[in-house]
């Protein structure tokens, strides 16, 4: 009889949600039972059984292990909601959206961050932030550096691009009709950069908080 493996996505979900000390026994128990029920149930029924167990178990542990992710997502959403509210009060949100302004700040800042740190460090920084778990002071230091470089690069790029816009406006100052929209777009670049810098600041402070109490000389 050809036995199948548990659904990989469900397993990955559990790997993500379960507390570290329960991953091995709980995933082992599930796999053992999954193998046993294959003797008297169809492949599809076994997959459904595993998915049901994975979802119910994730529900039990999500709040316990993903509190950091929930709180960070909530704070970012709260910040976004307040910003959109302020935009609405200022006369509508449409004038605040300009994709090129975002493109000339975030992607170059990300490239700078990858160049200064490393792809591994960037991945680890986001992983620490979303899992709420840091293992060593070195990890804290590297992750904080990632968010510092990302936020500061973004801010300087935003300022630089805004100045660039002003230079362009200055060179065509006689065309009064285009000065207004051009000025708005140039300031928008700085506004996006400041928003990203703010989120990066919160992220780095969160990592520092998570690292409190870690020993400088782990065994």
């Amino acid at each position, binding site marked *: 009889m050809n036995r199948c493996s548990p659904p990989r996505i469900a397993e990955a979900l559990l790997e993500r949600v379960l507390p570290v000390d*329960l991953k091995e026994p709980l995933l082992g128990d599930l796999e053992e039972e999954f193998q046993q029920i294959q003797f008297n149930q169809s492949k599809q029924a076994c997959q459904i059984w595993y998915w049901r167990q994975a979802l*119910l*178990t994730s529900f039990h542990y999500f709040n316990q292990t993903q509190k950091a992710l929930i709180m960070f997502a909530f704070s970012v959403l709260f910040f976004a909601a307040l910003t959109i509210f302020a935009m609405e009060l200022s006369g509508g949100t449409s004038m605040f959206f300009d994709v090129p302004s975002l493109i000339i700040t975030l992607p170059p800042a990300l490239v700078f961050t990858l160049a200064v740190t490393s792809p591994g460090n960037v991945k680890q920084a986001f992983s620490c932030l979303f899992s709420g778990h840091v293992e060593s002071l070195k990890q804290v230091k590297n992750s904080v550096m990632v968010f510092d470089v990302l936020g500061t690069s973004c801010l300087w790029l935003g300022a630089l691009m805004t100045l660039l816009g002003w230079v362009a406006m200055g060179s065509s100052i006689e065309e009064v009709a285009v000065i207004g929209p051009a000025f708005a777009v140039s300031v928008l670049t700085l506004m996006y950069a400041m928003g990203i810098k703010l989120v990066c600041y919160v992220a780095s402070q969160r990592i520092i908080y998570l690292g409190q109490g870690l020993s400088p000389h782990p065994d």
Partner: protein
Amino acid sequence: MGKSRFLGEFEQLVLLAILRLGEQAYGTTIRQILLDVIQRDVSIGALYTTLTRLEDKGLIRSAKGEATAERGGRAKKYFEITAEGKQALQATRQSLDAMWRDVKLSFVGVKQ
């Protein structure tokens, strides 16, 4: 018995399952015995939440077991009831027996 030692219904069932299984008490077997004996199909997550709570209360202890191929090479976690756990179980049983004494289900509208 202090308030912290009061056992909930599911905690009692899990402790009894561990007692019945002896040295073979781990997640899969506990889940299986609950299903076989009282037809209660609990999720593995709910079971481990209760096991963790009982361990935190000092009513059970755990030990890492062997890893097998059918478990994807993952080790088992065996559970054993402590003396404190046995006392808590006994005290809960005595409390329930005392409350059930002289009670007939017809008093509360249940046909016998």
